């Protein structure tokens, strides 16, 4: 039986494919930063919660880091909306088909995220009251989020294999099919989880930096602890990343290696990661900028992998386009205004000297 490749809907794209792909990759990078901090953060917090049973520094560390987690969870979800929107627009037919094959698992993401998110709140709000039990709460959140990551990598990998959809559909029970792309998706999951741990290491290092006025000792301890996670994660990532590259289907890897631009990006990403690793103990800024570069470049490479995998079956650049430019312009203007508003709110929140709080207001 010839493979059935799902067809896109007969409605023109509202903008050229290159612009939608750019927005897909750009907003995905934003989502990735928050998601890495969340996923890696709950893993690091789990370890620290365990160590905190005997070590008061770990207890103080988890108490402080936990305060940041609910808002990071909120931004992970919200920043994830945009890339998923553009993914559905450009690759919808493939994404819907791969989602339908694993429908029940895919739907479970909603409930796993909900539970994990409430877990993060619970951990933060009841950190001291929970005592040693706090470990179980944050560990549960970590396990839930790793499952979410697994289902995501599964679906994002599966949608790149439309040639297998029909066979799976004929043979399996639609809605419960998971084993499409093992072991590739397991390696991909490892790649993402290790990246999350490394980035969250850097994230807690940055957070510790904010504690220096209150407790310089804890800030310094937190910095060294975070950098250890970052460096450890990055070193492991060199191995996992290579393993992932060599697990890709031969034709995809050949397409990547044959493209000078991709090779250039990969090599630059590697050099930047090396720079980030080496500069981490000395300069937080240099390390952060370098790793931001690595993440952005890897997101671009990821897009090349997607295009190369799908090339035999689907090219979004061949789709008809009917630009909705006037609405696009409104979007851009509102995006800038929205970011400006958020920037202003963050400024007034963090500016020093706001001592008289609204809750203690008294006109007298």
């Amino acid at each position, binding site marked *: 039986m010839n493979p059935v490749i799902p067809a896109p809907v007969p409605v023109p794209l509202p903008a050229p494919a290159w612009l*939608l792909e750019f927005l897909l990759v750009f907003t995905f990078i934003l989502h990735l930063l928050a998601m890495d901090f969340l996923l890696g953060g709950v893993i690091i917090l789990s370890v620290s919660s365990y160590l905190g049973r005997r070590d008061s520094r770990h207890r103080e560390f988890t108490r402080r880091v936990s305060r940041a987690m609910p808002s990071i969870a909120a931004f992970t979800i919200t920043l994830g909306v945009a890339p998923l929107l553009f993914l559905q627009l450009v690759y919808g037919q493939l994404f819907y088909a791969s989602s339908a094959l694993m429908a029940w698992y895919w739907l479970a993401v909603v409930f796993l995220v909900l539970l994990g998110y409430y877990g993060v709140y619970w951990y933060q709000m009841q950190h001291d009251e929970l005592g040693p039990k706090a470990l179980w709460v944050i560990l549960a959140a970590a396990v839930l989020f790793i499952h979410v990551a697994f289902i995501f990598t599964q679906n994002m990998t599966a949608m790149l294999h439309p040639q297998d959809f*029909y066979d799976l559909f004929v043979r399996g029970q639609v809605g419960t099919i998971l084993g499409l792309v093992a072991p590739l998706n397991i390696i991909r999951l490892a790649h993402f989880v290790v990246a999350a741990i490394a980035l969250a290491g850097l994230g807690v290092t940055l957070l510790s930096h904010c504690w220096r006025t209150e407790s310089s000792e804890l800030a310094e301890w937190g910095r060294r602890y975070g950098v250890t996670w970052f460096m450890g994660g990055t070193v492991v990532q060199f191995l996992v990343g290579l393993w992932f590259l060599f697990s890709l289907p031969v034709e995809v890897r050949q397409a990547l290696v044959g493209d000078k631009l991709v090779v250039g990006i990969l090599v630059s990403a590697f050099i930047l990661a090396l720079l980030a690793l080496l500069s981490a103990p000395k300069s937080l800024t240099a390390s952060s900028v370098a790793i931001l570069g690595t993440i952005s470049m890897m997101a671009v490479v990821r897009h090349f992998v997607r295009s190369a995998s799908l090339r035999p079956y689907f090219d979004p650049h061949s789709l008809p386009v009917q630009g909705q430019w006037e609405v696009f312009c409104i979007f851009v203007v509102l995006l800038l205004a929205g970011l400006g508003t958020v920037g202003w709110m963050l400024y007034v929140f963090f500016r020093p000297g706001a001592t008289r709080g*609204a809750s203690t207001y008294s006109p007298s």
Partner: protein
Amino acid sequence: MLGGGMVIGIIAILHVFVSHFAVGGGLFLPLTERKAYRENNPALLEYVKSHSEFFVLVVLVFGAVSGVGIWWSIGLVNPEATATLIHVFVWGWAIEWVFFIVEIAAAFIYYYGWDRLDPKTHLLVGWIYFGAAWASLLVINGILAFMLTPGRWIEAQTFVSAYFNPGMLPSLVVRTAVCIALAGVYALITSSAVGDVALRNEVARYAAKWLLLGVSIIPLAGVWYISTLPGMAREISMGAAPAVTIFAGLSIFLSALVVAFTYFGPYQRPRYFSIAFAFLLASLALSTTGVTEWVREAVRKPYIIYDYMYTNSMRVADVDRVREEGVLKSARWVRQHDVDLNAPERTGDEVFRVECASCHTVDGYNSIRYAVKGWSWAMIDYQLVHLNELKGFMPPFVGTEVERKALGAWLASLNPLPATIAIEPEASAAESQSKEAAGEGARQP
């Protein structure tokens, strides 16, 4: 067992109940905070602070995740319609996303800012939250109304014609009123937990006013909204489909109950107001939301995007082609592309999955086995031929005659009819038995 529609329904109703609170509560917080400042009432301010924590836990977590859940479920159940909507409205959704980011940042800064921001700035952040939340409603409301009243878009196919559809404005007024009413419902819940009796009475009465104000706007705006609906949608809600009519009546009845309970309860006698009463009101309000959303979805039948796509993802423009080609030939996800004439009911199963399974399950929600119980094959076939005429809320059967008959054979096989028994006098029965035996014998070589 759970049909796709049921999964969407459960997630969507809970999301509607929380997301309208996300907007209405966003108005409630700064207005009540301002009231506390103006009246120099620190106890009320303390209440607003605790309400903001409840608000964050309900809205930012459940509201956001259930909203994503709707996306998840519609993409799984109705990918064609979802993809169409995203093609038409992607920039609308992108704009809504910008408002979400502002909304979430503002909510956190409002919540964490009680002790860090001065009152004026804190209030301003509250207003920014409300502005962004209402703007996100403004965007999504146009998209939701579009599905029922796509208006000029069917010909024009532009964003403006799709967004500014006939139902958009009245629906916006109805939803804004619902937001105000739900702000009252949730405030009643938190007010019932206030320890100080005087404050509890004051806040309960104040929250009841919000609920009553919101509900008082709904009838007029609702009539306006209904006036923009397609004729068939109005008929379905007013008698053509009994289940829908019953639910429409139930929606009005439950709303009246909510008003009565609120007026005679926390509004007139706040002293007797309790947590149990608050939850009773909230569950009544949730039921009202549930049945009303169900009716709104039901009157759109047989379409998912009115006049453009049927509930089973069949485009109106494709009907003639599919009738000629056959539904199995034009569908991708089928195991057989031709009817197996030796076992038509097996192919009928495939036709059912492609054409009916987006609304029906075999034995669970909207069970097809139950729907055709007691029907003969001839009756089933007659129904299939005239499906959209006999049942206005169902799309026509689209496919070749052979496919229709295969579907009929499968449907008939779901409830095997009992064998016909001829009742005869005992003597003649014995006679016929001996005749049968003789016949059997005669047939043997």
